[in-house]
């Protein structure tokens, strides 16, 4: 930066009025209350720590809580960057994922800037809290002090993990992201990317400290905890390809859980995990708590659900035929590609009854039932028809097409009274994911073993699927685990990052042609009439996001992601 003439000081003075609707504070004399005061009372610490969480869910743009674009809470939409889902444009897709899907996005698009801004807002809120909390040791109860410090350390690592995942990749050869461990002053803000290794060092320190200070389970739902910190630590190692350390950390997590007074466990009913009634379960390790009030809910309902739902969803993300065909048969064998007569209700229902139950739990397929607005039971028939018997026809937002629809994260009946602010929680880390990460780390580190199969079995049994045979070499088991992640976690925002972990940007094995660039088909094999998008046309650049153009414009030290122009 050339002009060294500006000097920005943090908090000259600031106050917060809690009851104010508009947020802007300060109607009392400004010279008496400074930001130093912000971090002096216990109440201020409550505010600052809750503030550090806020960019996880929804950074409000202006006063608009409708737009959670780019936040970790919207990551589920990024499954559309894999062959298992697709983002179909509607005006409601604030995430802008469709432009990445059809590769028409330029570096100025919101899909790139929103996440950048949301994550770095989180990073700087954490930095401010970490600057100030240590001075409050005498003000806060010891337990509260430890919790707060632990939570903020966890959050900063979570934001950096998300930044590395989308803007860089976690491996040595990836470019990294700019690193700030304290809020910089203006002159020091213009930094180049730090290497993934440098960012990782900060994440590891943060997570180790968080694990040290936090209790095993959250003291309040939605808070960070020791288990979440250790799981994220394991992921940091796993994504970096340090399988030995990852296996060690995950093994520690699993054995500590066995000894814990309140252990995490798989919830008995897979389908209910993604509904209001299954929300409070022992499977959630780190969850984004959502309630159906204005500004405090989840946007996924609107983006995933259909027109017959009370929220009048927009099917912005649709599960693809590739995903549906990928699910195994109920007996654990591979689906052979045979199709029923799609007009024959009984044949179609029999067909899907013969598949992994997680298919029906995750996806609304032809003749699938859905309890929609006013508790009316709809049957999905696509294209839409006007028959009412035996059920009215469920209408997808692309009703002349034969696409599948998501069932995950869709409210039933009139559960969502405020559209776009769904009360269904968003799991960021859940125990099934932990078991699969554990299996992956151990298998990569030392090959198949009883622990690996035990972990897989638990996930399979809960899904009411037969357990896997305990044979196969490391490569075969690797594939088993990878496939299981798709069956178990589809639609939850893990799949794009998984690919990034399993392959490398420089990896010629990652063949976009076969992995992503298929045309988007309906259940009947007919290409969907995509009015706002084209077929997926990924090139190597789609491995990661572009750095937002506005950032490149002001910071000449930044090097744009490969393939995104200059």
């Amino acid at each position: 930066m050339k002009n060294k003439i500006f000097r920005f000081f943090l908090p000259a003075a600031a106050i917060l009025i809690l009851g104010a609707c508009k947020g802007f504070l300060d109607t009392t004399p400004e010279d008496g209350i400074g930001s130093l005061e912000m971090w002096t009372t216990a109440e201020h610490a409550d505010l600052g720590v809750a503030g550090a969480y806020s960019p996880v869910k929804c950074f409000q743009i202006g006063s608009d809580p409708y737009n959670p674009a780019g936040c970790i809470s919207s990551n589920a939409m990024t499954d559309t960057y894999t062959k298992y889902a697709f983002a179909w444009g509607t005006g409601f897709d604030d995430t802008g994922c469709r432009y990445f899907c059809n590769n028409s996005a330029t570096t100025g698009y919101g899909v790139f800037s929103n996440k950048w801004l949301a994550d770095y807002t989180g990073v700087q809120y954490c930095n401010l809290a970490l600057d100030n909390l240590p001075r409050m040791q005498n003000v806060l109860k010891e337990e509260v002090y430890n919790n707060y410090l632990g939570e903020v350390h966890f959050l900063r690592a979570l934001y950096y993990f998300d930044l590395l995942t989308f803007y860089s990749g976690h491996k040595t050869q990836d470019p990294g992201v700019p690193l700030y461990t304290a809020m910089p002053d203006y002159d020091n803000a213009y930094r180049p990317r730090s290497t993934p290794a440098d960012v990782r060092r900060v994440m590891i320190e943060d997570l180790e400290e968080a694990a040290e200070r936090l209790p095993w389970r959250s003291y309040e739902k939605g808070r960070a905890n020791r288990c979440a910190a250790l799981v994220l630590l394991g992921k940091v190692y796993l994504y970096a390809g340090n399988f030995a350390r990852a296996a060690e950390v995950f093994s520690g997590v699993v054995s500590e859980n066995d000894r814990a007074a309140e252990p995490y466990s798989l919830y008995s009913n897979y389908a209910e995990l993604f509904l209001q009634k299954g929300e409070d379960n022992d499977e959630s390790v780190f969850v984004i708590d959502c309630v159906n009030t204005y500004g405090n809910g989840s946007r996924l309902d609107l983006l995933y659900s259909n027109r017959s739902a009370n929220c009048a969803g927009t099917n912005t993300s649709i599960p693809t035929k590739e995903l549906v065909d990928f699910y195994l048969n109920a007996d654990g064998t591979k689906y052979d590609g045979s199709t029923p007569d799609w007009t024959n209700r009984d044949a179609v229902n029999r067909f899907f009854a013969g598949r992994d139950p997680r298919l029906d739990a995750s996806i609304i397929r032809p003749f699938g039932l859905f309890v929609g607005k006013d508790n009316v039971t709809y049957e999905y028939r696509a294209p839409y028809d006007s028959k009412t018997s035996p059920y009215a026809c469920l209408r997808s937002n692309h009703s002349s097409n034969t696409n599948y629809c998501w069932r995950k994260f869709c409210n039933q009946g009139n559960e969502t009274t405020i559209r776009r602010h769904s009360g269904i929680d968003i799991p960021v880390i859940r125990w099934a994911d932990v078991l699969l990460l554990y299996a992956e780390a151990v298998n990569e580190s030392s090959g198949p073993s009883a622990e690996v199969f035990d972990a897989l079995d638990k996930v399979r049994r809960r899904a009411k699927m037969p357990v896997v045979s305990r044979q196969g070499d490391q490569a075969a088991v690797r594939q088993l685990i990878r496939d299981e992640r798709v069956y178990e976690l589809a639609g939850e925002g893990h799949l794009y990052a998984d690919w990034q972990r399993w392959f490398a940007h420089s990896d010629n094995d990652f063949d976009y042609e076969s992995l992503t660039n298929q045309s988007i088909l309906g259940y009947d094999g007919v290409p969907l009439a995509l009015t706002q998008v084209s077929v997926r046309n990924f090139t190597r650049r789609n491995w990661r996001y572009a750095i937002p153009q506005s950032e490149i414009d002001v910071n000449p030290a930044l090097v744009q992601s490969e393939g995104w122009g200059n």
Partner: protein
Amino acid sequence: MPRLDNLKLRASWGKLGNNAVGDYATQLMYERRTYVFDGNAVPGAGISAIVNDVLTWESTTMTNIGLDLSAFKGRLNLSADVFDKLTDDILIRASIPGVFGRLEAPYTNAGKVRNRGLEAEVSWKGTVWNDFRYGVSANYSFVRNKVLKYQGDVASYSGQRILLEGYGIYDYYVREVDCIATQEKIDRMLADGYVFYPSTPQPGDFIYKDQQKEGEVGYKIIDDGDRVIKGHSYPSHFFGLTLNAGWKGIDFSMMFSGVAGISQYLNSTWYTNVVRNGSVINKKFLGAWSPDNPGSKIPALTTNDGGRNTANNDFWLQDASYVKLRNLTLGYTFPEKWTSPFISRARIYFTGENLLTFTRFEGLDPENGSASNYPNMSRYIFGVSITF
């Protein structure tokens, strides 16, 4: 110079201060940020802006040298000025990098802008044939603005416009259209190693000029790096002409005014090659490129442009210079002898406002920005004015 009535040479210098921002701009503010724990939305707090605690006032220094002249018994009047207006320490919201988060940028005394130019006005009034009165008055000014200091090499952007040291305030910054693509040309360029952003053109799309030469970064990459500064968003020339005449009871006046040296970016739902359901577009686009109309300079109509033709480019940048007939008045005052003693004065008149516009700009009104803005109205008034 026997007929010179008045000659005055003027010079002035002044300096003004201006506090152009609201109060408390030197303070860091915390805003409410909500999060949910245990099913309850709880208040949180996060900063919303970065502040600068060393703000000072803007200052404007104005230097002016002028000449006033009056001659021929006041029939000729002339006034001319050369001015230099230097505004320093301009309070600008600096660009801050996004690594601060979604924060409002602070005000800084970052800018220095010079406006230099000249103004001249000349008028003549006279009488011929005893009772034919006439007057002519013309004015002209020329102003050039230049950003002397802003953020070094770092620019700010506002849509298609750029704020950068050494250039005019918010000059346009656009790609230059080279030609309309043919399949043959696209194939040739692709084979030649060209890369296109946002995506490879299709026949009928624009091909933009590659501004880089061999060996330079960005060579054979057609993207926003090929934008150039082109066209001012503020006019350089302002001019006006007023004519009036009278003969017996008849009075007549008309006034023209106009500007030149300004461009407008015209690309809206009404002026575009992108057809949307239910939108009305300019009939010019009937002449768009198509396989049957390969000579057209207008890009092919499409429902899905993907930014290939609507990327900021000079096709949409138009010269918005204009001359307008602002006012025309024709009146007749009845002789007093016809109307007295009951009526002291009676006049009928016609006035038209905003009657004619001469411009090459294709939007609705060159004075009024983009195509969708409501144009200035034309008004026709027929009036009778009676004074008792």
